[in-house]
Structure formats: C-alpha cells, structure tokens
C-alpha cells in the first residue's frame, strides 16, 4: 500500500525523524493561511499524489510571498498533474502540502528496502540526493552506499557509522544523522514497511538534518496489524475498478488491451495474459479469482471485467480441487445476471470437466468452448477481432 508524502512524514516524525514544518491544504485559502502559520519568507507548495517525479511535472513550487503560495496552490488543486510516473493522463491533485523553505547545503539520498537474495534489509545512501536512485545506480553505482541489516539483530551503530563516514558527515550533523537513520529503520520495521525512501534528505546551512521528501510503501500482508496505517489508504488515488475488486478479495489490475481475463491463480493468470499476447491479442486486465471462487466472486469478477468494455472475454480455470461443474454453474449464473454481450471463450480443466462443459453447452450463453490453453487463447483473439462467433 502506498501513502502520501505528508502522511509518510508524519509517521517518520513520530519516530524522531526531523521534518520541515508543514501543513496540508485542500484550497488556495487554506494553503495561504498554512504558510502564514508556518512563518518565514519562503515556502514550498507540493502536490500530494501517489506518483514520483512531481518536480518535473510542476507539482513542486517554491514561493516567495503568501500571494504566490495562493496562486501556486490554486494552479495545482483540481487540476491534473502529469509526471514521468503518472502516464499521459496524469493524476488529479486534491491536496497540497505547504512547507517552510530551507537553506540547503547538501542533498542526500536514504532508502530502506528488502533484499530478497540476501534476505536482509538494505540501508542505501548516496551523496547524489534529489535524483532518481535508479539513474545513479546505472551511471555511478560506486556512489551508492549499502549496508545489509539482519532483521533478527537489527540495525547496529557500525552500519550508521559506515554510512556517515561514507557520506562525509561529521560532528553535530553526524550525531543528528545517527538519530535520524535509527528512527527511519525503526519506522520501517515497526510499521512493516516494504520501502522507505527519503530523497532528498537535506543538510541545511544551519546544520539541520531533515527529510525534505518522504515515500513509504507497506507490506499489504501486514496491514492487519497496523490499523493506523490502513486508515491512511486514499481510495481517490486508486483505479476505481481495482478498489471494487479488492472489496471482493479479487486480485485485479486494469491494463490497456481489449481481451478480458478471468483466471484462478496468479501464475496462471499472468501466463494467460502472456499467451493472449503471443497470439496477437492484448489483455485488458489481470484477474485472479483465487483458489476458492464462489458464485458471488465469479459474478463480481464478470461485472468488473465487463465495466472495462472488452471485445471478448477468456475464462481459464484449472479446477484442481475445485470442481469444474460448480465453476460452470457460477459462470452461467453470473453471465445471466450481468447481461453478457461479448463473446466468452471458456476453458475448463480438472475434476468433473465433462459435467462442467455440458452445463456451459446447455446454458444458451454466447460461449465458445476450448479444451486447451492454446486453443482458448487463439479463439479469444479471433473472437475479439470478430473472426469467430459463438
């Protein structure tokens, strides 16, 4: 799960990590009043959307007067922000974060992420703050410092010393860095984060050490034990069909093609998308109904797929433990309820397969049966082009 910058900063601050003074605003008036309360003579107005690269898209503006804060907030709020990560359609800005401007001496990078191969938590730091870390990694990997932390033992002082000396931090700033890094690590493990990224992390001319930007993602599997984090979920930032799917515990991702898919199992669902593409089609979605799909789930899945207006739908079910006749019943009932008006290619395999196919054949629905995955993929691509009909 993703959260906004202002939310990530609030979490980090609760672990003793220094952040600039800031306030959230949903109107230009609020933004101006926030700037007044924050004080000073320079402010930064930052669009709050779940996408990186905001600066490049005009979503981060430095302002030197309260009127400018008002104007920049007005320009962002209610408009779409296009960044390298949002795609050309952009993202609607509903909130801005107003922050005090800082006198920056150095911009650094700090990140924490799981390393699957070593099964350790990696603390990454770089003197090249403010840039995409992938770019730095590609261009000058030697500039990225990495410390591998064993979760059972936790972060040790030497990890932080290695980072501080590596970044050339000394004296009071190094002391602040110790407290900062410890706080970020504690936030990562205590909140079950999957990623924490502070980019840039700044050293100010007065010797401050603060998170100027902050990104936190969380392990979805651990959200049950973090109700406070779960409350930060912003449904406005998510694809509406994906939100609907998550209510039914369906794993759904909207894609750009025109062939809808309903599959049981994530691996088989990915493989089904792949084989559609192999035969020249474009999948409209990824949809895993899970191992225990009942009628209700199958119906919800059909509604979601149809809402995306596909030209044809492929159902690919390997009913191992689940019986094919029960799945076929579910498909027939769901298809009748949702007024199916596009060709449906159904491939069923597994227990009671003959009975399942019989139920589909006698249903009167516009179903094109297929026996193998290959046959199913070829047929659905042709059906989407109008080359074959049920």
């Amino acid at each position, binding site marked *: 799960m993703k959260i906004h910058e202002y939310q990530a900063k609030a979490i980090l601050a609760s672990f003793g990590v220094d952040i600039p003074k800031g306030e959230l605003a949903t109107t230009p008036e609020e933004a101006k009043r926030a700037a007044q309360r924050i004080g000073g003579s320079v402010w930064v107005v930052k669009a709050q959307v779940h996408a990186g690269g905001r600066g490049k898209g005009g979503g981060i503006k430095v302002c030197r007067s309260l009127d400018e804060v008002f104007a920049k907030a007005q320009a962002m709020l209610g408009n779409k922000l296009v960044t390298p990560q949002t795609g050309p359609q952009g993202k609607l800005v509903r909130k801005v974060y107003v922050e005090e401007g800082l006198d920056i001496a150095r911009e650094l990078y700090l990140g924490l992420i*799981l390393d*699957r*191969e070593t*099964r*350790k*938590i990696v603390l990454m730091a770089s003197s090249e703050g403010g840039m995409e*870390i*992938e770019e730095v990694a590609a261009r000058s990997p030697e500039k990225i410092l990495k410390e591998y932390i*064993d*979760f*059972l033992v936790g972060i040790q002082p030497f990890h932080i010393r290695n980072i501080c000396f590596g970044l050339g931090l000394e004296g009071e700033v190094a002391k602040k860095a110790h407290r900062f890094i410890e706080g970020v690590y504690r936030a990562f*493990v205590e909140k*079950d984060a*999957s990623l924490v990224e502070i980019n840039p992390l700044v050293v100010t001319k007065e010797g401050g050490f603060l998170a100027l930007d902050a990104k936190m993602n969380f*392990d*979805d*599997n*651990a959200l*049950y*034990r973090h109700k406070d984090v779960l409350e930060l979920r912003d449904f406005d930032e998510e694809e509406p069909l994906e939100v609907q799917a998550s209510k039914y515990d369906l*794993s759904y*991702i909207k*894609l750009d093609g025109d062939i809808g898919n309903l*599959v*049981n*199992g*994530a*691996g*088989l*669902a*990915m*493989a*089904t*998308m*792949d*084989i*559609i*593409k*192999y035969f020249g089609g474009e*999948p409209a979605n*990824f949809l*895993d109904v899970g*191992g225990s799909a009942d009628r209700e789930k199958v119906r919800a899945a059909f509604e979601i797929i149809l809402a995306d207006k596909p030209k044809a739908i492929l159902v690919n079910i*390997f009913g*191992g*433990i689940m019986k094919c006749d029960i799945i076929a019943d579910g498909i027939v009932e769901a298809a009748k309820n949702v007024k199916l008006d596009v060709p449906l290619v159904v491939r069923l*395999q*597994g*227990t009671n397969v003959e009975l399942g196919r019989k139920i589909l054949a006698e249903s009167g629905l516009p179903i094109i049966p297929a026996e*193998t*995955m*290959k046959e199913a*993929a070829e047929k659905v691509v042709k059906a989407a082009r109008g080359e074959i009909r049920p």
Partner: protein
Amino acid sequence: MAIFLDETARVLVQGITGSAGSFHTRQMVQYGTKVVAGVTPGKGGTQLDGIPVFNTVREAVKETGANATAIFVPAPFCKDAMLEAIDAGIKLIVCITEGVPVLDMLAVKPIADREGVRLIGPNCPGIISPGKAKIGIMPGHIHMPGHVGVVSRSGTLTYEAVDQLTKLGIGQSTCIGIGGDPIQGTGFIECLEAFEADNDTEAVVLIGEIGGQQEEKAAEWISKKMTKPVVAFIAGQTAPPGRRMGHAGAIIAGGKGTAKEKIECLKAHGIEVAPTPADIGITMARVLKKV
C-alpha cells in the same frame, strides 16, 4: 526415490479443524499420505476421521511420531505455527497459507536454516511425490509417477504444466510449489540441487515468474552444476512494471525482475524456455527424446 517427501513421512496438520485444513487433510489421506495427527489449540482430545487432534505440536510429535507438518492456520498465526513446529523438532514444514508478512518470514527463515528444517512456502500449493504422498492442496489425480521433477513459484500454473506432462505420458518424481512470496523457505536452487542428486529424476521443469533474481541465480547454477536437462517457463511477459501481480513476490521493481531479462538469461545459460505456457509439456517431451 523422490525429493524431500516420500511414503514414509508421518504428517501432522496444523489448523486441521479449519475448513481448508479439514478438507485438504481428507484429500491428503485419500491420496495415501500418512496423516497421523492434527493440532488446533483448544481442540485437543477430539478427532477428525479418526485422526487425533492435539493442543500443541510438541504433544502431537510425542504421541504420534509426526515428522512433517502442513500449515493451514490463518496468516497472522503462521509465524507462531512455523516456530512451534521447528521447536518440536519437525524437519519438513509445508506452509500453505497465503498472506504471511515479509518480516515474519525474515524471522522464521534463518531459524529454520539453523535447525536444519526444510521449510516449503508460505503461499504455496505444497509438495507431491506422485504415487507416494502429498502435503498440500494440489489435485492428486493429475499427477503420474515418473522421472521429471517440477519446481515452480506458482500454483495453478504448475497444475497446468503437470497436466500437460501427464497427458504426454511423462510422469513426475516430485513436484514442489515454492510459493509466490518474496521470502521463501526453499528456493529454486535448493530444489535443483536435490533433483540433481535424486536417482529417480531425469529432467526438471522450472516455472518462474517476474520479480526478484531467483531465476537468474538458478540459470547460473544450472549451467555450472546441473547435468540433467531443465525446461523453463517464465510467467509475466505482459505484466506492467511496479504492479504486484497477485503474488506478493511478483512485481517488477526499479526496472528489475522482468520476464524478458529472465528468459534471456536462461537461454544464455543454454536452458530451453517454453515459448508459451501451453508448450511446457511438449518442450519437455522434445528434450527427453534427445537425451
């Protein structure tokens, strides 16, 4: 022979009284697996089809000599269940449950390693040595005893591959679903090592997916250490970056872990890669003819 599991395993089911636990216990028994005990705290003294249920794993092991466990308890209790099984001296743990937090696995995995425990999963279909025993949720009837090992990060896609093999008359020695999570008890290389050492296995099907570097590491290991042929398939060629494709571990992050990279890497190491998921069986049949 087979790897990790054979007919001598004395299996315990943690979470035996739950709906998934009881259903799959019956399926496992029907397949011929020796399920000797169940554990559900608070239900000790009861039975499921004559299988005694205990309150603790320690008690179940003491009374029945169980040496393997299938875990069906809900995700929030899996860390505890795995550690309890390790503590009780169980040496083969198969965790079926989906949704175990990554940090829980970061705690359990090193302890399992230290205690010499073979941990499979979580978020996996389990393991089956056809004709001998199964610990998991895969449909037994699609399998056939034989000499091809199968190792996969997926569930139903593995059934698809096994079904293709069986229909072509190619039996399997052992099929293992290692699970779709970022941190797994057992990875590809450990399975490949075991298949390489197993006299009963002549070739291996490896089914990978997007995310991580496991397939690349496996490719390198195969080219250096494996004498038996391997046929691979990688799911997720059309998966968009940055999106979790159902499995917690199936995500292209920071431009890394794409299917294209993995397929190129496998091919560069001389491994046959099936072009579509429908060609896994046929590709293996062709490779076996050459041997």
